[in-house]
């Protein structure tokens, strides 16, 4: 994804429209996933990233092709933004051989190694130490690559997070830790899990450089992420990037959100939708928007088609891929 715009100060409207298109793809993809799940077509359980599209796109756009990411249970957006085709992603959600994890992983375990996705992790915080280790490998080999982990506000409570950040800073590895603070861990609001308001203090405990962004503003996310990855890439140490964002849906598909006032969601949807905000800034005319919607709808519908026509694994394939030869 390395392009000239990366070093420029203001992003061109064309670039921002590309961002918008990617965000729209994530949004429509997630909506389709909700629909297909409710239709009973998708096994397992699923977490969508509606409301957090700007973080996924802004951050992944700031990465070079051979930078890598680790994601979480809420991984569809990161995966699409890192370059996985919607077909491969949707096929995975349907448990097909054509899926990005060949049907072995599922929604919470999305991998696409060629595109630098080293895996979504269903254990909160579980992916962070590996990012430190991958970054260490790059450092030892002198490769100018960055390893980046996404995780939520809830993940900053688990010991793994602290150990990983400490190690990263101690060893000054080229890692970036992107905390998507969507103000909930499942049903648990900040005041029930976080005794502090400013989560960057958790990076300061290790002396790590921290940056905070409005996670609903994709341009700001992109610019800050670029700064963070450059910092890491240039050997100046890891960065903690805190993105304030909002989960505009339930924790999982079907979550009745009994723990959350209905008005809160309504209000957030009105004021904090990253797509609305970007579209308004760019002043996208209706016909252009409609065209984009159509193109994306085709892509997303196509991914469902692709997935449904995909190949079911053979039952006994379950015993493959346990060990490397």
């Amino acid at each position: 994804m390395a392009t000239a715009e990366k070093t420029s100060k203001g992003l061109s409207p064309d670039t921002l429209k590309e961002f918008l298109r990617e965000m729209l793809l994530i949004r429509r993809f997630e909506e389709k996933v909700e629909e297909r799940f409710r239709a009973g077509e998708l096994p397992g359980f699923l977490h969508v990233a509606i409301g957090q599209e700007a973080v996924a796109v802004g951050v992944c756009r700031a990465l070079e092709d051979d930078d890598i990411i680790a994601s979480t249970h809420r991984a569809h957006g990161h995966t699409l933004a890192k370059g996985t085709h919607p077909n491969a992603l949707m096929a995975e959600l349907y448990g097909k051989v054509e899926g990005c994890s060949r049907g072995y992983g599922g929604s919470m375990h999305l991998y696409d190694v060629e595109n630098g996705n080293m895996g979504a992790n269903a254990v909160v915080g579980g992916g962070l130490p590996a990012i430190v280790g991958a970054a260490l490998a790059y450092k030892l080999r002198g490769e100018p690559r960055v390893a980046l982990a996404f995780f939520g506000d809830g993940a900053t409570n688990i010991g793994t997070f602290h150990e990983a950040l400490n190690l990263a800073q101690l060893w000054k590895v080229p890692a970036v830790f992107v905390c998507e603070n969507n103000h909930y861990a499942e049903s648990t609001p900040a005041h029930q899990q976080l005794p502090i308001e400013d989560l960057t203090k958790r990076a300061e405990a290790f002396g790590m450089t921290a940056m905070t962004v409005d996670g609903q503003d994709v341009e700001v996310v992109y610019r800050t992420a670029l700064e963070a990855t450059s910092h890491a890439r240039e050997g100046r140490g890891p960065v903690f990037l805190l993105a304030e964002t909002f989960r505009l849906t339930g924790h999982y598909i079907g979550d009745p959100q009994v723990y959350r006032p209905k008005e809160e969601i309504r209000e957030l949807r009105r004021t904090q939708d990253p797509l609305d905000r970007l579209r308004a800034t760019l002043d996208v005319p209706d016909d252009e928007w409609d065209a984009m919607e159509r193109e994306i709808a085709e892509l997303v519908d196509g991914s469902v088609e692709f997935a449904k026509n995909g190949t079911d694994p053979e039952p006994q394939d379950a015993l493959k891929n346990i060990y490397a030869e």
Partner: protein
Amino acid sequence: MPEITYREAVRDAMSEAMRRDGDVFIMGEDIAEMGGSMGVTQGMLQEFGPERVRNTPISEMAIVGAGVGAAMAGMRPIVEIMYQDFTTLAMEQLVNQAAKHRYMSGGQLKVPLTVRTQGGAGWSPGAQHAQQLEAWFVHVPGLKVVFPSTPEDVRGLLFRSIYDDNPVVFFEHRTLYGIKGEVPAEIEPIELGQGRIHREGEDVTVVATGRLVHEALAAAADAEKDGISVEVFDPRTLLPLDEEGLVSSVKKTNRCVVAHEAIVRMGFGAEVAALVQERAFDYLDAPVERVGARFSPLPFAPVMEAYVIPHEEDVLAAIKRTVGRNGNG
């Protein structure tokens, strides 16, 4: 006798203990407003308030450890670990702390802590959300390990576990929460270490736990059609284990199948097989057959998942294998 679900039975046991006894309280992730990710604790926040129904941060190690400390200070905490897979984060506190404080102090302390957790595949949660790890804990002196399969048992055993003065790791099976069963009107605590014969039989004993109790009962009914009489024994607590009950059943039937959802290799069935051949060697007409998950992480795709975990057919096939074998080989 009233009929309630396995889920309600878990809730009942906790609620009743909390009503009787101010020292009992619960902690866990999303157990308050949300009522637990499996809905087990629904309504408990409303009844008991946030001090006794404590929503926690995502900190499996610390919440188990806080349970250990509260227990040593005289409370009877119940900690919920949302998925068994996450006990991997709390092993230090469970194994080195909860299980050993009494011993290391030469008997000065006790740790009346109950750690509830659940797991179980069959709904494509993938490799990190449905492992069955109970065998690990059976290897740890100082712990007790309970794994009930019916509403009645889950209620009686959980109630008893809460009042046990030792740390109990209490396993629930995800796919059983919805099943219904009759229970006594009043909670009757069930002693730990007593198995239950779900069905008497003459030809083979199936020792089964959790979901596999139900698969075994179905297999037994099927086997009956072929004239095979199957005894189904659920140990209910894996530690302490009702060895007498188990061994005497096998001495009667002379054959044994052991079935659980966990992986066969180094699973609880290994211990059962080892014990049975030790204690009933001269009675066995066939080797103890083990039924359980194949040696694989849990795959996502439903067809593969179904292949990995055991079902009624697998129990039935094992029954037939063992019965088909000539006595005294």
